[in-house]
């Protein structure tokens, strides 16, 4: 049986080089980076090296990089940390601007703060293409706005957001403002394909994840501009300059550094993006052309090179997923049943495609290991599956 992995936005296969870079720190080099003896020294050194690799990728200072336990942790730190710091400065009810299509790590954190009365929040709507308008950010700025958090690219529909444009808008606005508006972006899905230079983007805080870039799970990065102060949300030792205390997970940090090496080279990144984009277009065109009642969700142009999200009318997404699983193909669905949650995807609902189309969507997310023959196999088996499920369906 073939096994084809088209769920790279959920997680990626660990790169062999990354795996090998991690191994020593799971075996002989097990020291605590805080220890003064040579065991500790080895761990300390590799953490520093990894920090340098990430700083290089983001175009920032090494001391602006914080390793955390996951991208969810980084998002929480950015939001909660900024809110707490603003409250400390006397802004009792800070205002946050975000979008309706953020990852739950951002959306749920802000909703929670809003619910307990700590913040005011504005959730910017997106059009059919799934892209936030910079002017909407501008029009919703208030006196007490302390943070704008907009993802670099969406995880479900791959919609690329105008981060650099929003960054430059906020820069202009901030000249005249007493309370500076900080800018955070979750760049987890974008990192493989887009330029993440923090100066070009004009961001103050940025989130990365290890396991979406062929690195290990359980490692996140928070970039924090030096002049920006955030309050810690957990307490303990001095690690990560008290922003994320706790003994460093040395092996995953080493893995993160090596994973970054794989995406750091711009030329290579562009070459890789082009290859994946070609496969993506082949998949999109093949499905839309050969299967009736199909619609691409999100903008075709403003899209990550690896994302395909299509709705199949009259069929429930989860049943397609299970049927594809039987054929050895792994995909995902934003729809109800599969995720253990009966609500349709908040992202598709925000596009205004309607609840029925949201329930019938499948996300195919490609990665660097996918081949043309895998896409061809997919295009061969999918029409039969849809035909069969439509025969069972009362809605034709």
């Amino acid at each position, binding site marked *: 049986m073939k096994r084809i992995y088209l769920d790279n936005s959920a997680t990626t296969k660990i790169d062999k080089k990354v795996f090998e870079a991690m191994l020593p720190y799971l075996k002989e080099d097990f020291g605590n980076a805080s220890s003064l003896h040579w065991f500790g020294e080895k761990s300390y050194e590799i953490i520093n090296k990894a920090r340098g690799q990430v700083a290089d990728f983001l175009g920032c200072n090494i001391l602006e990089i914080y390793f955390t336990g996951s991208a969810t942790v980084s998002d929480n730190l950015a939001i909660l940390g900024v809110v707490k710091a603003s409250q400390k400065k006397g802004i009792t009810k800070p205002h946050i601007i975000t979008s309706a299509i953020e990852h739950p790590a951002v959306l749920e954190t802000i909703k929670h703060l809003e619910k307990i009365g700590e913040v005011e929040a504005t959730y910017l709507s997106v059009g059919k293409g799934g892209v936030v308008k910079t002017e909407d950010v501008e029009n919703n700025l208030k006196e007490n706005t302390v943070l704008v958090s907009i993802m670099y690219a969406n995880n479900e529909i791959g919609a690329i957001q105008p981060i650099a444009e929003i960054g430059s808008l906020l820069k202009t606005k901030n000249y005249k403002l007493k309370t500076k508006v900080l800018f955070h972006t979750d760049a987890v899905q974008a990192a493989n394909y887009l330029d993440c230079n923090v100066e070009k983007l004009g961001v103050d805080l940025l989130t990365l994840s290890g396991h979406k870039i062929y690195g290990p799970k359980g490692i996140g990065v928070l970039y924090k501009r030096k002049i920006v102060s955030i309050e810690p949300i957990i307490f303990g030792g001095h690690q990560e300059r008290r922003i994320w205390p706790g003994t460093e997970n040395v092996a995953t940090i080493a893995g993160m550094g090596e994973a970054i090496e794989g995406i750091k080279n711009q030329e290579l990144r562009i070459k890789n993006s082009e290859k994946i984009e070609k496969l993506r277009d082949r998949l999109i065109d093949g499905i839309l052309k050969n299967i009736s009642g199909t619609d691409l969700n999100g903008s075709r142009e403003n899209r990550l090179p690896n994302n395909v999200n299509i709705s199949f009318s009259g069929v*429930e997404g989860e049943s397609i997923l*299970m049927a594809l699983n039987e054929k050895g193909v792994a995909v995902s669905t934003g729809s109800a049943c599969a995720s*253990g949650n009966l609500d349709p995807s908040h992202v598709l609902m925000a596009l205004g495609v309607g609840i029925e189309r949201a329930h019938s969507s499948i996300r195919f997310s490609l990665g660097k290991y996918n081949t043309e023959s895998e896409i061809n196999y997919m295009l061969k088996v999918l029409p039969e599956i849809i035909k069969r499920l439509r025969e*069972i369906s009362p809605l034709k």
Partner: protein
Amino acid sequence: MPSIYSREIMKHFKNPRNVGKMKGYDGLGKVGNPFCGDVMEFYIKVGKDKKGKEIIQQASFLTLGCAVAIANSSALTEVVKGKTIEKALEITKQDLLNKLGEVPKPKIHCSFLAVDALGEAIHDYLIKNEKIIPEALNKHHQQLAKEKQEVEKSHKNC
């Protein structure tokens, strides 16, 4: 391929029995709605056994839904075949769970739809033929109608 579902569920999902609209059916039950991501039509044909008792001679279905919803519809068409109306009404949601194997908690909703659809098909048959409708069935029918209305009103609350 291994999946999160039992072998029995996958067997029915991959190879569903008694699919399709039934010509000349005696009862039709429609449950669910597209807003919740599942719609089910359950058809029955009623006949008589040797003792002259009314039995469900045939059943078929059409389902838009997840693998569990499809598998349950398929399994129920087999389970119900040859049962008297009374016995058919005694089939519980737990019976289907027992037959097909447990499902993850959020999916239990999906596995209950088929039993509801069968009940609705029997209700339809009894009404059309001016027969006495058991109190419990009538109550459940009204409950489903009410839920349907509410869901359609709010497009939510699946």
